[in-house]
C-alpha cells in the first residue's frame, strides 16, 4: 500500500462492462513524511467516496479485487482508506484537518483541486 493524494477524477464512458459504476480517481503518490508529490500518478478505483485533495491509502495488484465492490472486476488499484493522520517520531506529520506539517511543494495546480476542476 502507499499514500497518495487525490488530484483528479477520470471519467470514462467507453469501458469494460464490469467497470460501470466504478469511480476512478487520479491519485498522485506522495512522500509519507512531507506530503511532497512524487509525480507518479495512477488511476485508482474508489468505493468509499474520497474526494479531491484527500490523502488516501491505496492498495495495489490483486489485493484491489478483495473488496465487495471490486470482486472479480478488472481493477488493480483501490482506495482502502482516507488518511486521518500519519504519526512519525511521536508527532503527527499529517492530519486531515491541518495537512502535512511540512508544507509540501505540491505540484498540482490549485485549479485542478477546485470543486469544478479543469477538464484536460
Amino acid at each position, binding site marked *: 500500500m502507499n*499514500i497518495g493524494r487525490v488530484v483528479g477524477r477520470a471519467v470514462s464512458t467507453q469501458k469494460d462492462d464490469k467497470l460501470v459504476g466504478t469511480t476512478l480517481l487520479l491519485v498522485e503518490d506522495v512522500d*509519507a513524511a512531507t506530503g511532497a508529490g512524487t509525480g507518479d500518478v495512477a488511476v485508482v478505483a474508489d468505493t468509499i467516496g474520497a474526494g479531491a485533495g484527500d490523502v488516501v491509502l491505496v492498495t495495489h495488484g490483486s489485493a484491489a479485487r478483495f473488496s465487495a465492490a471490486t470482486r472479480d472486476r478488472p481493477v488493480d488499484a483501490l482506495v482502502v482508506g482516507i488518511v486521518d493522520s500519519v*504519526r512519525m517520531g511521536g508527532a503527527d506529520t499529517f492530519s486531515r484537518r491541518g495537512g502535512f506539517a511540512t508544507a509540501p511543494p505540491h505540484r498540482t495546480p490549485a485549479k485542478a483541486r477546485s470543486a469544478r476542476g479543469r477538464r484536460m
Partner: protein
Amino acid sequence: MLLAEVTGLVVAAPKAGELEGVRFAVLQPLGADLRARGAQVVAIDTVGAAEGQRVFTAAAGSARLASGMRDRPVDLAVVGIVDEITLAPGGRA
C-alpha cells in the same frame, strides 16, 4: 520479503469495510547496507511492530496469508520483527 524499518503509523477512516480495525505502519525499505533505500510504503501490521523496529514483510498474495487478512484488500503485511541481523563478511553495513 522486504526488509524495512517502521517509521510511523497511519490512522485512516473510513476504510473499506474489509479493513475495519486494521493497524497500518509506514515502512522505509532498507538496502544491503541497512540504510534507507527507495520510497516509503504502508503495510498492515498484525505482529505489533513499533516505530524504529526493523521488520520484514510479505507482499501481494502472500500478504493475505497473514493472520486475519484472508480475502482482505491488503498487498503488504508486516509478518515479523527482526531481533538481530548478522551480516556475512564483506557485507556492506
